[in-house]
């Protein structure tokens, strides 16, 4: 290698042109700075944690040693005793059920309590974890006995309300006594499953049989059951309530992000029908397919991306996407999502010299102020644009501005994206996965509304899915687009 050639390569390596970093990059990085950077504090915490774990481990070892020593020292039982236990016959079922005993207590209570008990009987049964180790009759005995004991305590300590709830719940919530009126009423209204099961003329329970299967509660009993579970301090929330507990907002900045929109349309298509145009929430479809960011976001982040339209660009039709993601926090079950910012305002200013026509996809054009922008939010809005051509590379097409006041530091922040002509010069296929899925999802939604153009969208969706066979959203989009375009179950 001669020195001239070497110098040439060195020169090329050294003189690679680099664009300016994006305007918002500094803010993005700064928003990632953790609140607690102190290494010393972290080390001290880590040391404390290690020390605590070691103490627990030592305690466990000591306990195991004691147990082992006791096992060695204690004489073992004779084999005959074991045989005797095995040969014991199951006890006959009691003639009076636990419910009867409870009912006696209740009859002596006030008439108002009787009404509550009657309501509780009418209410549908609640689902409880199935207990398999104990026969129902014996379990009922134990619970009724326990309930009666608690009733006696409740009558003294907690008053009449506690007495009723203890009696009816038969031990499940019977321990909660002397509480406030509304809570106890909920407890009284929520029936004890064992009591309900036995209030019907059921056959005498077979010893060691499983508890009868109880149908899942209807929606009206959901709140009562949840209240009961909450009062009892345990988590009894079955999956059937998952939708009830989904506290995520259905719209952000006025843009629909309802996650159920896609499921409903998909179900309609799978049933062989075509969804009515008015039922198609295009914005929600866009947000379903845009999904969450690929990487975990901290703070508030805004993306703006432009590309030619996936179908029928014709040299001037383009798509502009803006997405706002907020930092992810863990929310306990049933908890509410905390806000990350307040007074959030999203503004878009289009340059009419560059844009001939602006069509907000869905209702993205009517942006509203968000008084409280929550964590765990991803919202995407799309605009279909007709650009004036030829467009100059440096010509401003739009300016997107997001201002908000951070809850964490109380300061006002502004994120600005300037979209220029050069942003539209890339191919749609070179756009990010999120942009392609969102824009194609939008066109699919529009095709459902207008009943035209579905085949082009389906073709494009098939390409997308074939290029990314592991992409679940791309596969879903292909399936529904093909089906709704006549290639599948469309009637």
């Amino acid at each position, binding site marked *: 290698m001669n020195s001239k050639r070497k110098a040439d*390569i060195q020169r090329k390596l050294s003189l*690679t042109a680099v664009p300016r970093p*994006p305007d918002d*990059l500094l803010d993005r990085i700064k928003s990632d700075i953790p609140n607690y950077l102190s290494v010393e504090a972290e080390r001290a915490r880590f040391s404390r944690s290690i020390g605590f774990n070691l103490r627990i481990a030592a305690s466990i070892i000591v306990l195991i040693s004691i147990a082992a020593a006791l096992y060695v020292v204690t004489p073992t039982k004779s084999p005959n005793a074991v045989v005797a236990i095995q040969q014991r016959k199951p006890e006959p079922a009691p003639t009076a059920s636990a419910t009867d005993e409870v009912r006696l207590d209740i009859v002596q209570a006030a008439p108002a309590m009787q009404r509550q008990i009657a309501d509780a009987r009418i209410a549908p049964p609640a689902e409880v974890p199935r207990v398999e180790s104990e026969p129902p009759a014996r379990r009922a005995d134990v619970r009724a006995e326990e309930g009666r004991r608690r009733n006696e305590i409740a009558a003294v300590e907690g008053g009449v309300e506690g007495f009723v709830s203890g009696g009816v719940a038969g031990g499940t919530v019977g321990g909660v006594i002397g509480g406030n009126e509304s809570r106890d009423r909920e407890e009284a209204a929520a029936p004890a499953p064992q009591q309900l099961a036995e209030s019907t003329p059921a056959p005498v329970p077979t010893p060691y049989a499983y508890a009868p299967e109880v149908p899942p509660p209807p929606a009206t009993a959901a709140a009562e059951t949840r209240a009961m579970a909450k009062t009892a301090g345990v988590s009894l929330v079955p999956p059937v309530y998952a939708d009830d507990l989904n506290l995520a907002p259905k719209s952000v900045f006025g843009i629909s992000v309802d996650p159920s929109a896609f499921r409903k349309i998909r179900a309609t298509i799978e049933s062989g029908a075509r969804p009515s145009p008015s039922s198609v929430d295009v914005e929600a479809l866009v947000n379903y397919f845009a999904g969450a960011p690929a990487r975990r976001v901290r703070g508030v982040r805004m993306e703006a991306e432009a590309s030619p339209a996936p179908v029928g660009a014709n040299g001037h039709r383009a798509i502009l996407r803006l997405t706002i993601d907020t930092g992810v926090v863990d929310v306990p079950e049933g908890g509410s999502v905390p806000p990350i910012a307040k007074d959030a305002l999203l503004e878009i200013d289009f340059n009419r010299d560059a844009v001939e026509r602006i069509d907000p996809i869905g209702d993205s054009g009517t942006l509203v102020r968000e008084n409280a922008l929550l964590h765990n939010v991803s919202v995407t809005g799309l605009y279909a644009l007709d650009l004036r051509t030829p467009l100059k*590379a440096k010509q401003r097409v739009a300016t997107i501005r997001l201002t908000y006041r951070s809850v964490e530091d109380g300061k006002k922040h502004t994120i600005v994206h300037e979209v220029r002509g050069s942003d539209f010069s890339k*191919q749609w*296929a070179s756009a990010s996965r999120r942009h392609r899925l969102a824009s194609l999802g939008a066109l699919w939604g529009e095709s459902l509304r207008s009943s035209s153009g579905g085949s082009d969208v389906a073709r494009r969706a098939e390409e997308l899915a074939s290029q990314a066979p592991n992409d679940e959203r791309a596969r879903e989009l292909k399936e529904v687009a093909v089906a709704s375009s006549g290639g599948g179950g469309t009637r």
Partner: protein
Amino acid sequence: MQKSEREAVTASPWSEEQRLLGAIRAGDTAAAEELVERTYSAVFASIYRLCGDSDLSADLTQETYQKAWAALSGFDGRSQLFTWLYRIAYTTFLNYIRRPRRMTSLDEPDSIDVADETPAVDAVLVVQEEAEHLREAVMKLPEDLRFTVTAHFWGGLPVKEIARIEKITTVAIRKRLHRAFTLLESMLDEEPS
């Protein structure tokens, strides 16, 4: 990396760097912000030269700092702060390219007609094409040579610093660079003109 940019990053006084590091370790968020302000454009430039994509570089730069905060307790301060940051950025980039590649379409849709009034567009394109070929050739180098070349020319790290983090002598680093140039020359000669 341009000379002025390199000087701004690597020629910061040792005591100043230690002061910043100490403040960050004491939990001073303002010091962390100052560090970011001083270094982020250089980290961005280093990653851009590796990947050639502005948006991706921004994302990877952000990821680099996220990893840096998490790994701050492990930084022993023996190398310069930017050297440490560059190593994280380089690893972040390598992790990225080891993930599955981004999709490309089977056919190209209509593109938007965008004109630029900048003069000598063809010349710019030729330079960009050459730079892209060079970048691809560098990416094909063996890992040790690739890191040495990119850290020296694109990360702006002096040979001495690279030798320190690679735990080899400066002579060995210069040998690596020589081998890398030989390989690059042969690869660039093979490239279609």
